[in-house]
């Protein structure tokens, strides 16, 4: 947490709103990559910040981050309607392929479908670690703090995830 928030009370709305601005997107991305969009990451972010506000007297600003990530994760695990397997990542169309042959385009499409499935089949821990690092560009240390694990573990998860994805995606053509 940055210095200007130290020794300040989260019960003050300007402090609370600054915490929201700094952390809500990270929290949302974390939930999205871990559980997919069908499990309403927006709502869980709202619930987590609501809990932070209700406990504003007991949480110091430096602890807000780990408080939010823990609460959000528990909230997700407790949610009864939680959908277990289906992770609906929206696949954006790859751009700038206008000069490619239909065969190439088809292969690309199959490659993407295999990748989508492979990502969904990763464990939640592998997926969130890998995607936060590769898509959001989060440093190993930052991810370690978010997830409350060691830097070494982050490194291992990213590597394992990459290995699994490659095994499932890189099917050699005969």
């Amino acid at each position: 947490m940055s210095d200007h928030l130290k020794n300040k009370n989260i019960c003050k709305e300007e402090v609370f709103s600054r915490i929201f601005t700094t952390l809500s997107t990270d929290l949302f991305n974390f939930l999205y990559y871990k559980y997919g969009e069908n499990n309403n990451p927006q709502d869980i972010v709202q619930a987590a910040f609501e809990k932070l506000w209700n406990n504003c007297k007991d949480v110091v600003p430096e602890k807000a981050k780990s408080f939010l990530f823990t609460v959000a994760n528990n909230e997700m695990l407790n949610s009864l309607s939680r959908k277990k397997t289906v992770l609906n990542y929206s696949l954006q169309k790859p751009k700038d392929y206008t000069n490619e042959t239909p065969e190439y385009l088809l292969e690309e499409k199959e490659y993407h479908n295999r990748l989508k499935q492979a990502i969904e089949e990763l464990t939640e821990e592998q997926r969130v670690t890998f995607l936060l690092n590769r898509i959001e560009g989060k440093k190993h240390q930052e991810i370690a703090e978010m997830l409350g694990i060691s830097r070494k573990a982050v490194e291992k998860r990213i590597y394992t995830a990459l290995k699994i994805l490659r095994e499932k995606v890189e099917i050699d053509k005969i």
Partner: protein
Amino acid sequence: MNNEDKIKKWLAGELSESETSDFESTEEFAKIDKLMKAVNTFKAPGYDVLNEYSKLSDNVLHSKRTISLFERMKPVLKIAAIFIVALTIGYFSFNQINSTSENQGWIAEQSEVYLPDSSFVAINSGSKIKFSEKKWSKERNVELNGEAFFKVKKGSQFNVITEQGMVTVLGTEFDVKARENYYEVTCYSGLVRVKTEQSEVVLKPKSVYRVIEGTEQQYTISDKATPSWLQGESNFKSVPFSFVIKELERQYQIKVETGNTDINQLFSGSFSHNNLSIALESITIPLNLYYEINENKIVIGLEE
């Protein structure tokens, strides 16, 4: 260094420059690179911090505020309660002598209310209604400031009173929008009589009567059962842009600066109440305007 270590170090960005260029020329790297590029298409959808915060602020922060204030004021309130009891007794005895009746307070802000005869009112953002529960059995009068949709139970005459005019019905569904220099009544079923300073009209279902800055208009709308704002959208038909901006400000509780924009030009279209950037796009793109979201205010202007 074996292959696994090399990839791990590359992932962590720990390879030296020469090691990196060596690694990046391998066929293995080409495959990884392709994978990584494809992975990036799975990026999470954008998170609308501004909008999400205002949701949180509406639902949580402000309700909590009143509770904490209440708790702090508890000792004071105990004393106040004694006075209130005393005053109430005094008021009622006074009231019996004078036989006057007191109106209820204003009910405001996007809520749904059932009137004493179970007629239904949906109130739009930045709007309020007021009615007297006591006198209800004698006369069904509702004062309105802003916009509301009414579903009136059949019965005696029902009046909606605004600064600009009065709407009289027996039992029907209609929407009244009374804003500064803007008055609009839409009838959805039954018959609605509208009385303003200028004129008196009777509206049939799916017809609209409106007065914008003194100019009267009457037209019909396509098949719609309820106003669009009940579905989270504001709809406009040839309305001066300044009124569109005012509605946007009310819906999102924001300030909009229009700079060099021609705010008198007519706008037809709609915007959503759920996503500020989409809403801004839907009102600026058709008019070739740009918009910018700064911290607390939004700037709209002519595209260079």
